[in-house]
């Protein structure tokens, strides 16, 4: 029986995107406080991991076919508001494809600018407007992600949380269902499922 060697593709150390698990481990070490790091570095490591998570979401979430204008249309990861990722996200998605759609990072100043987008990271800078923004986007096929405490209550789909210095994520299944997005059960195994209280 032919056995597939999972690593028969040559590994390119220079290719930073392929090294994200290393960053994750390094970050985990840093986050666990094993090494004292300046606050700025700690935060940037955190977003490095979150950038990788955003990329992984693209892998484990299924968008309806009409979420794209055509089969070769770009897969957009949008950032609304202040960009906490710096260059990490751009590096993570560079030259990557999801189901044939090339990954593109798009930065939005305002919610009105969002036209064709699959994953939207709502920055903390938008915390005051988040409820309205998410309400506007709730019926579109956009996976809304953020790290604000009230993101899920506000109608967002995935919220990053930090627990014991590790990054986890919460998933609002109802919101995902409204957005017509299917989240892989494998990813849900890792997630904390939350249901926002009805007002």
């Amino acid at each position, binding site marked *: *029986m032919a*056995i*597939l*060697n*999972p*690593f028969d*593709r040559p*590994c390119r150390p220079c290719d930073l995107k*392929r090294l994200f*698990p*290393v960053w*994750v*481990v390094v970050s*985990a070490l840093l986050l666990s406080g094993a090494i004292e790091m300046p606050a700025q570095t700690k935060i940037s490591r955190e977003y490095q991991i979150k950038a990788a*998570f955003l990329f*992984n979401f693209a*892998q*484990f979430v299924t968008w309806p076919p009409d979420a794209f204008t055509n089969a070769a249309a770009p897969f957009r990861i949008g950032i609304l508001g202040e960009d906490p990722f710096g260059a990490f996200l751009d590096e993570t998605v560079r030259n990557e494809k*999801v*189901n044939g759609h090339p990954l593109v990072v798009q930065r939005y100043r305002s919610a009105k600018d969002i036209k064709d987008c699959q994953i939207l990271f709502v920055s903390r800078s938008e915390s005051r407007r988040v409820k309205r923004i998410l309400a506007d986007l709730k019926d579109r096929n956009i996976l809304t992600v953020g790290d604000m405490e009230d993101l899920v209550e506000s109608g967002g789909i995935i919220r990053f949380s930090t627990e014991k210095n590790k990054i986890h994520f919460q998933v609002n299944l109802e919101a995902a269902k409204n957005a017509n997005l299917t989240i*892989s059960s*494998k*990813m849900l*195994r*890792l997630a904390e499922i939350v249901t926002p209280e009805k007002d």
Partner: protein
Amino acid sequence: MPLRNLPIRRKLMTVNLLISSIVILLTCTAFITYEIITLRKAMLQGYSTRAQIIAANSSAALAFQNEADAADVLSALKTDKRIMTACLYDDQGKILAKYPSNAAAGVFPDAPRASGYQNGCLEIFSPVVQGGRTLGAVYLQSDLSALTDRYRVYAGLAAIIIASSILVAYLLSRMLQRQISLPILALAETARVISDHHDFSVRAAKISDDELGLLTDAFNQMLTQIEAQDMAIKKLNTELEQRVVQRTGELEAANRELEAFSYSISHDLRAPLRTVNGFAGIVLEDFGSQIPEEGKRYLERIRDGGARMGVLIDDLLAFARLSRQPVNRQNVDTARLVQNAIDELKPQRDGRQIEIRIGNLPPCQGDAALLKQIWVNLISNAIKYTRGRVPAIIEIGCKLDDGGTTYLVRDNGAGFDMKYVNKLFGVFQRLHRTDEFEGTGVGLAIVQRIVHRHGGRVWAEAEVNHGATFCFTLEEADKL
């Protein structure tokens, strides 16, 4: 004991058992080999599938580097006691999770490699792929107890099957071999009875209608023929014996009659001969003066003829007597016997210069009087036929060889032509004229008769004017 010397029943059983055992053994071997190959393939397939399931379930854990979830996915393997260790590699070949969770890192291969049976266990590697991206690999290591357990079951089954098959084959061949062995044994028993008791009236019982039945029939037919021939031979033998006895009796009677006849003739011839001789002598003595010289000469010739006839009759009587006289066998000192014979012949040697050379003469078994007669006759012949030879040489001796003792008398006398040798020992047969060498022609006939009565052989070799050699044996070589 080699197979070919075994009794036929055991031979048949042995052959049957041997063949069935080999067939069963080969069948079991083939079956088990096939099963083992299939089993190993199936096991590899089964664990590959399991590894692929684990791989599919652990893609998220690998993507999000969630060790707890990875360990959780692997912990599902605990339902299979045969899985010894398992782990998840990320795409850098680093171990993200282990099973069992307390396993030492050293038990895992440094990097994923080909799946297969290695170091007494089964190793499976399966890549973890998500959306076309390889995220890592699953490693599974199972012991081979699944295989060895099954091997044990197979071995047990094979043993039971082989044992029961051989038992069944044994019982069947025990029953079936009778079909073949019984008729053969019956034949063999019949043959034994016949050869032991020479009773050809016995018949073999026919048991089956196959080739063995044919054989039995043929055997019985042969017996019938042999019996008939045996009876015919016995009858012929009896008849023959009766005929031999009858003929022998007739022959003996005729012989006796002939001997009596010749004896009485010889005896009865003497009386008239004596009359002729006597009156011829009286006429010469009493009326010699009145008879003219020519008449006297005729009368002399009548007397000479009568005297010669007397000698002939004496010799003939002696010869005839030999057949009636029994041979009285005893140890005989041949050397002394020969010396006596030579002494007896002294008058014949008077005035002759004869050199007699006597060699070694071993004692023998025979009738002394008859044997002496042989020597007297042969030496007398030698003296007679060397007349005129100076010196006359007579050698007496013997030869010892495989054929026993051969006695010989050799002279350097007149000899004879070998083409008449077959006449030499006949009665009244003479090779020389009477005026050359006197004699009746009975001497050698007597020698031959005595030698024959001793069971021996007599012969002669000679050359004209170069002497003769007479040889005889007293017993045939094969009787010694």
